[in-house]
């Protein structure tokens, strides 16, 4: 099968799978619903209890987990491209510890309100992550082309340590606060409201469009800075673009669902195994895989044990970590 037809096949297959997982997510759970009653709800019929379960609980949960999966997958892909390193993940730049710090501050200040369904804690997290992004971009663009990427990594790591230190220090004095922050960062897709989906989805769409439009540049950039420059690509602008897209998508996903591990690392890898490194295809496949896999993991997490929910991170780690090890060993053995 030639590569274009293979690509088309995967796109259709994944779209179909996403819809399937969507229906399955809405049907499965404590209260099992038959497909016919779901269709009734979508047609405006059905009783109010079923309507509430479908429209206020399960559907928002599916939509949000899908959009977070897509965002983290794209975020990972753009960072892996920027650093030309497939072992980079979205939290590499310290976005999650910045967000946690924001939450800590919000809880410390005792603000407990919410706007449009987004809590103040989340907004603080978002602002804190935005500050980190801004700082990274400012510093990286003030440096020369050759040193900027190493600087971004070092600064990201340094800042995330500073944030964790601040978090730990506060936790030392206010133990309950530490628990609250930790719960916040592990919240996953519990108590999801549709407004979180409305908040995050535009970011996913814009991020996807930006990466798709820049796919050719991403391809060329894979060669080297010097070659890409000689073909007319402004490396500084490109770096800022990739950094902004990635950090913004990660921040939004942390704000709506806390830290979800491994998804951003290994989904682009699966995409690469399926369609290769060509970025136009890879961007499409990666976002579709994100939209498909995270809701699937979430579905497993809340249905595998009857009457009990396992944190989605546990499911993702249980599947993701061995996969990561497999990739790493494969790379070390040179079968890359």
């Amino acid at each position: 099968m030639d590569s274009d037809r293979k690509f088309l096949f995967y796109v259709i297959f994944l779209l179909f799978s996403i819809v399937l997982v969507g229906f399955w997510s809405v049907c499965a759970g404590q209260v099992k619903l038959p497909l016919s009653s779901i269709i009734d709800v979508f047609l405006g019929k059905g009783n109010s209890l079923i309507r509430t379960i479908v429209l206020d609980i399960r559907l928002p949960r599916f939509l949000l987990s899908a959009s977070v999966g897509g965002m983290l997958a794209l975020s990972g892909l753009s960072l892996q491209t920027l650093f030309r390193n497939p072992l980079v993940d979205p939290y590499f730049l310290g976005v999650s510890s910045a967000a946690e710090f924001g939450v800590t501050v919000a809880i410390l200040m005792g603000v407990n309100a919410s706007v449009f369904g987004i809590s103040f804690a989340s907004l603080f997290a978002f602002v804190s992550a935005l500050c980190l992004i801004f700082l990274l971009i400012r510093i990286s663009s003030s440096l020369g082309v050759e040193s900027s990427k190493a600087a971004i990594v070092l600064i990201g790591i340094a800042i995330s340590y500073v944030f964790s230190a601040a978090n730990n220090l506060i936790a030392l004095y206010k133990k309950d606060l530490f628990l609250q922050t930790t719960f916040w960062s592990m919240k996953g897709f519990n108590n999801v409201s549709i407004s979180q989906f409305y908040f995050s989805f535009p970011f996913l769409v814009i991020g996807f469009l930006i990466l798709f439009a820049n796919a050719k540049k991403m391809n060329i950039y894979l060669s080297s800075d010097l070659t890409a420059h000689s073909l007319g690509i402004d490396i500084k602008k490109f770096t800022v673009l990739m950094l902004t897209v990635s950090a913004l998508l990660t921040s939004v996903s942390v704000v709506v669902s806390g830290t979800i591990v491994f998804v951003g690392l290994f989904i682009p890898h699966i995409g690469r195994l399926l369609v290769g490194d060509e970025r136009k295809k890879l961007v499409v496949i990666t976002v579709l895989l994100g939209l498909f896999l995270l809701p699937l993991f979430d579905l497993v997490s809340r249905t595998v044990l009857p009457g009990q929910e396992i944190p989605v991170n546990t499911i993702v780690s249980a599947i993701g970590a061995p996969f990561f090890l497999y990739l790493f060993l494969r790379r070390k053995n040179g079968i890359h």
Partner: protein
Amino acid sequence: MEYIKVANLSFSYGGERDVIKNFSLEINKNGLYVLMGENGSGKTTLLKILIKYINGYRGSVKILGKDLKEFSLKEISREIAFLESEIPEIPLKVREVLSWGRFPYGEDEFKKEYLIGALNLSNVMEKKFSSLSSGERKRVLLGRIFVQRSKIVLIDEPFNFLDPRYKIEIADMLKILSRKRIVLIATHNLNAARYLGEIIFLLKGGELKGVLSKDDVFSLDAIADIFGIKDSMKKEFLKFYNIEQY
């Protein structure tokens, strides 16, 4: 027309000693030109200045009669094709790498297919670039330069990492390339410079030490000076390169 005109160019990295010193050069017609000097003599820096990868030089640089500073990055990438000395690891198909020659001005399929045939690349088109040997990769990268069709071509150390067979093939491609373009090569490879260069610029410590044309008799002392060869080693130098006399 002055295709490349460099006058009194000086450059230093971060205010340290000058790696290019009061350098001048003029190229007015198509052909193969060589910048020859030892490693660290400023060859690569000079090429990086010409493609605007490095800024902040003193002196003047004109490309096609226009000041380099007036070119945008996009414009200069259309006029000047550049090949670095490293052979990058690119995990993409050869077809994709060749298409970069037309970036960002859109593809030109007919011409590309014709070139692929002429350069004998048709059997590797669907292969991954990073799965090819160094020699084949270099051929693909040069193929990209053909697709690019710019007036000026700069190539840094075209013969590094290559087997003799590919050295000859690449040299042949460079000769064809230079019929309709200005090809400026930076190299420390004495044999290649003598074999290819119509005009050879001798570079040492960032300074232009002399200009030789193809028919000039090379003076042993001048060449030995360029490469920092001591008097006691000159005899060995001649033997190593199997030269009777310059």
